[in-house]
C-alpha cells in the first residue's frame, strides 16, 4: 500500500500504483479465515453452476425443435387434406362424365 500524504495546493500528485495483474496472488485483508473459506466455497459453487448449466440450453434447444416438429406435422396433415380434396374432385368429375 502506498502511504497517502495530504495534498497541498501547488504540490504534485503522487504517482499512481502499478496496475495489478489478475493472475497474481493477493493477500486477503479485512476478512477472517472462516469468511474467506465460505466465500471461496460460494465462488467455486457459482463457477461450477455456470460451467455446467445444461438445463437451460437443453430446454431452449428442445423447444426450438419441438416447434419445428409441430409445424412439420401441420404441413404433413395439410398435404394429406389437400390430397383428399384432389381425390374428391376427381371422383366428382368422373361421376359427371359417366
Amino acid at each position, binding site marked *: 500500500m502506498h502511504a497517502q500524504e495530504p495534498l497541498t495546493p501547488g504540490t504534485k500528485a503522487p504517482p499512481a500504483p502499478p496496475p495489478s495483474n489478475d493472475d497474481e496472488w493477493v493477500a486477503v485483508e479485512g476478512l477472517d479465515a472462516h469468511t474467506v473459506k465460505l466465500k471461496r466455497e460460494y465462488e467455486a459453487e457459482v463457477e461450477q453452476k455456470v460451467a455446467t448449466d445444461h438445463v437451460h*440450453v437443453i430446454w431452449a434447444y428442445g423447444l426450438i425443435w419441438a416447434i419445428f416438429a409441430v409445424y412439420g406435422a401441420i404441413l404433413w396433415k395439410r398435404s394429406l387434406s389437400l390430397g383428399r380434396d384432389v381425390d374428391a374432385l376427381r371422383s366428382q368429375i368422373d361421376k*359427371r362424365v359417366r
Partner: protein
Amino acid sequence: MKRGRALLCYAFFAACVPLFPYCVNRVFLETPIEAKMGTVQKIFYFHVPMAWMCMLFAVICGVAAVIQLWRSSPSAEAVATAAGEIAVITGLAVLVTGPIWGARSWSTPWTNDPRQVLTALLWLIFVAYLLVQRYGPPNADRLAAGLAVFGMIDVPIVYYAVELWKSTHPTTGVVGSLPSQMWSSLWLALAPLLLCTLGLFFVRIRQERLSQAMDAAWVAFDRVGSQPA
C-alpha cells in the same frame, strides 16, 4: 419446373441431415464456453439465427404483400402466407429461447427491454395477419396484406432498438466483436436452420398454390354443373 422446385425442397432437407450433427458437435463441444455467462451462452448460437430468420421472413412477407396488393397476384399471396407462417414459427422460437437465456443470465426472463417488446409486437402482428387471412370475411386478404406491411416496417425498428433506446440486449455490433471461433460457429449454426426453414417455406408455398388451384377447380366444376344442358 415444378419438379425442379420439389427437388430443391428435398435438397434443402437433405443438406440439413449431415449439417445438424456437425453443427451440434461444433457448438457444444468445440466452441469455447463464454467466460462471463458460461454454458447458457450456447443458446446464442440458435437464438440469434432464429431472430435473423424471423426478420428476413417478415420482410419477405411484407414485400410479397405489397406485390399482392399492387397486382392482385395469387403467387405473391402464396409467398406472403408461407413467409408469414415461417415468421411466426421462428418468432416463437426467438421468444421462447430469449427468456430462457435471460432467466439465467439476467436473473429474469422478461425485462420489458425495447427489443423484447418490439419482437413480441412483430410476432403478434404476424399472428394477426394469419388469423385475419384465415378467418376474416371475404376480401380480408387485402386487410391481412396491410398488416403484413406494418409487420415489415417493425423489422428495422426491432433491429435498431438496441441503438435507439437504453437496452439490456447486446448491441447490433456484438457478432462482429466475437472471437473467430464463436463467430464462425454462429454462421455454421445458421446454415442448417436456414436450409430447414427454406425447405419448409417452399413446401408451404407449393401447398398454398395447390390450395388456390383446388379452390378455382371446385368453383369451375360447380359453375359447369349449374349450367343448363
